[in-house]
């Protein structure tokens, strides 16, 4: 056998190549296109009816009032606004919010007036919150969650049944928590429910949740970051089709977040310039990832932080809240910012009120004066 020169031979596989390729530090990943097909689970839904019995409702009130809310107070600076928009709300209704973090459901439930909250269930991803019995039991008890399927397949009848039974429903139509703090495309489920069941949609904007507990964190960031929950006026489907109604809901949630950061008037003007279709809006507003995260983690409020003890004292002195007015959960009001807002909102009639959840609003009034809290 002849073997003329110039022969080449591959150098062999490098150790670093192997380590990086198979990610020795973590579990080896599977390419997306190689994952086995998993049909949507059918036939058996996690039972949650027990969590809506009177006894469980009473237990939930106790758990939220005595456990969850003090814990939120201790770790976050909360403000709730726009509760006056819920005056005269025709229940049942679908509460539709952006999904900024795992804090959203407890925040929203704590922010709701008690008579509404007592009959409010939260739609939660079946594949995440109900993948084990202990997680399913826990969330069903604390938040009255019902499982919904987000991987396709036959839609569950549970949400529609709940609305028919007079229960309100909280839905996060993005389907998952935000990855960069920005509002993602809304799925059609919430609008579909509202149209088919003939119920109103109450838009809710939550701001600061992403910065307080972004994906990957199991607890809030230290320093009691500010988080605000802002309710908007109910939207009625009327003759809207699914797509356009989803667009309206998206626009309103987006505007509420904007309103919380600026003012009602500014948000109205900005909304007029913003494209109505969510996907198009998202494309139009596409920025570098770091800019999106940067914007989303901008601290909510700038004033000094009030201790939870002070906040509790204020709540105690204020008594039982009404639905109107504007009240800071922690009353950590930035005076300078409030003055600025008051100058922008001469009469506060834009539904931009804020209310202490479950407490009398120290700063609240019938006209719904905004009280953003830092």
């Amino acid at each position: 056998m002849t073997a003329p020169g110039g022969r080449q031979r591959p150098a062999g596989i490098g150790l670093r190549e192997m380590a990086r390729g198979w990610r020795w530090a973590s579990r080896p990943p599977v390419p997306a296109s190689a994952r086995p097909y998993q049909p949507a689970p059918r036939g058996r839904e996690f039972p949650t009816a027990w969590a809506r019995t009177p006894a469980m409702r009473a237990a939930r009130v106790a758990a939220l009032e005595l456990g969850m809310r003090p814990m939120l107070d201790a770790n976050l600076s909360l403000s709730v606004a726009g509760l006056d928009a819920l005056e005269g709300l025709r229940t049942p209704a679908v509460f539709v919010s952006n999904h900024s973090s795992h804090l959203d459901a407890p925040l929203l439930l704590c922010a709701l007036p008690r008579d509404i909250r007592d009959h409010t269930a939260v739609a939660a991803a079946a594949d995440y919150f109900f993948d084990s019995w202990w997680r399913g039991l826990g969330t069903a008890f604390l938040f009255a969650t019902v499982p919904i399927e987000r991987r396709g397949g036959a839609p569950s009848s549970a949400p529609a049944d709940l609305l028919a039974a007079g229960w309100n429903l909280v839905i996060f139509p993005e389907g998952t928590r935000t990855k960069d703090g920005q509002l993602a495309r809304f799925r059609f489920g919430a609008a579909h429910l509202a149209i088919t069941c003939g119920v109103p949609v109450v838009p809710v904007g939550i701001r600061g949740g992403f910065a307080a507990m972004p994906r990957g964190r199991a607890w809030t960031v230290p320093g009691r970051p500010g988080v605000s929950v802002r309710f908007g006026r109910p939207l009625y489907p009327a003759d809207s089709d699914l797509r356009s109604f989803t667009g309206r809901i998206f626009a309103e949630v987006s505007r509420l977040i904007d309103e919380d950061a600026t003012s009602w008037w500014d948000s109205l003007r900005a909304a007029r310039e913003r494209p109505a279709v969510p996907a198009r809006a998202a494309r139009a507003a596409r920025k570098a990832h770091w800019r999106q995260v940067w914007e989303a983690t901008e601290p909510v409020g700038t004033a000094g932080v009030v201790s939870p003890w002070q906040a509790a004292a204020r709540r105690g002195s204020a008594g039982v809240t009404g639905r109107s007015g504007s009240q800071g959960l922690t009353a950590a009001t930035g005076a300078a910012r409030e003055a600025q807002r008051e100058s922008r909102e001469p009469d506060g009639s834009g539904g931009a009120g804020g209310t202490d959840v479950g407490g009398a609003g120290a700063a609240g009034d019938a006209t719904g004066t905004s009280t953003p809290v830092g």
Partner: protein
Amino acid sequence: MRPGFVLEVDERTPPLLVHQGEAFGLERFPLGTRVVYPPESLPALADVDAAISRALAEPENSEPLRALLRPGMRLTIAFDDLSIPLPPMRRPDIRQRVIEQVLTLAAEAGVDDVVLIVANALHRRMTAAEIERAVGERVFRSFWPDSLYNHDAEDRDNLLHVGLTENGEDVEINRRAAESDLLVYVNVNLVAMDGGHKSVPIGLASYNSLRHHHNSHTMVHSRSFMDHTRSAMHSSAWRMGRLLADHLKIFTVETTVNNAAFPARYGFLTRREWEWSVRDQAMAFGLSRGLAAMPTRPRRRIFQDLVADYGVTGVHAGETEAVHAKTLANVHRQQLVEVDGQSDVLVVGLPYLGPYNVNSVMNPILAMCLGLGYFFNMYRGRPLVRRGGAMILYHPVTPEFSQLHHPSYVDFFEEVLAESTDPATIEATFEKQYATDPWYTHLYRTSHAYHGVHPFYMWYWGAHALDHLGDVVWVGGDRAACARMGFRAASTLADALEMISSTVGRNPSLTYLHSPPYAIADVR
């Protein structure tokens, strides 16, 4: 058993295994590259001997073999040579199992005149050891050397011109086979190209007969070799086979094997990379580094000593065409992968072994044949790469030749390719001279050399690809050897993509055919 599938490379995809002759490496393909994975191995038949027995007793469109055997008859058993399966299968070879059962029936029927012939056509003569490995010690000791031998396509006295097909093609095969009362052909069907009428009319033929279908014209019009209904080469062989069937009773036994192309300890070679265990990763790393550090001779020994754990998935016997239909269904069940559309670039990693370098060296011409002849043609419907697209092949293309097995290849490489690389030009100018060269003929008949015309046939195998492709680049290939063959060599995949950008643009779509084990892309 999971079917084959097409992976789309994403951020989670680990580097993928790429064969590079007597070595292999890992390659990170650009995001979005499609990777065609063959189906996993079908389960093997639990009782192969029972399956053979059943096939012989209940054949397709034929009387049982037992009924065809009688005292005083001339029985010839021909069987495929060492070019299939690849790598050679673990003993006992399926040919041995079938031949032993055929001979048992013949002995029971009182048949005395039995001859076994290796259907090697213009391939090199198998050595005694290679034949013994294929047929087993018992058969070898009973018949070697007088009644068990290699077919000699240059032995004029032992060839018989049976006739002409309707297209005027000469049908000339081994005289002993042609004049037998019964010819039993024992086949191993590794890919869809094998078997059917390709067995007798080609395996036992002479150059005079083979030249009608082994030429640049039929090869260009064989689209592909893996689909005999659309292959001009197979159409010619089918015409010859039907003519032969009118003159001669042929009882065909075809067998199919699964995709267990490597021994279990080299499982990483057949496993999907993201499923590699720590042991697989360690094996891949250790083996590749060890091979890279090893001198050529022991490295080659390691590869040539590999035997596959092939399991038999089907045995069918009877009339050739009826049997082949069943065989093809088995092959397709094991190898067919549905692929959606063509791409701009096809990437393949060529392994150390092709049909013509068993126990030998893969020279540049054989590498070209393996890449552009075989892997390019692993499709049904349309090629994996669009017309005018590019093909990137991984192989060292070392200009190294076995003087024992491939003497005419040396001259073909040095003389013929220096003149032209166009198959039709080469055929018209040089083929006759090499086919009739007395020295090559002498080596073919008495030594273990491929016939003088064989390198031409290898070049013709690539004719369809050469006609179809706009560019061919060899990653890691010897530059001078590639240039001699009219191709270009690149050091890395990135370089290769840069080089073909003038043909397919800056953002071409890529398909990597992850093979072996073998997969036939059913391109829709």
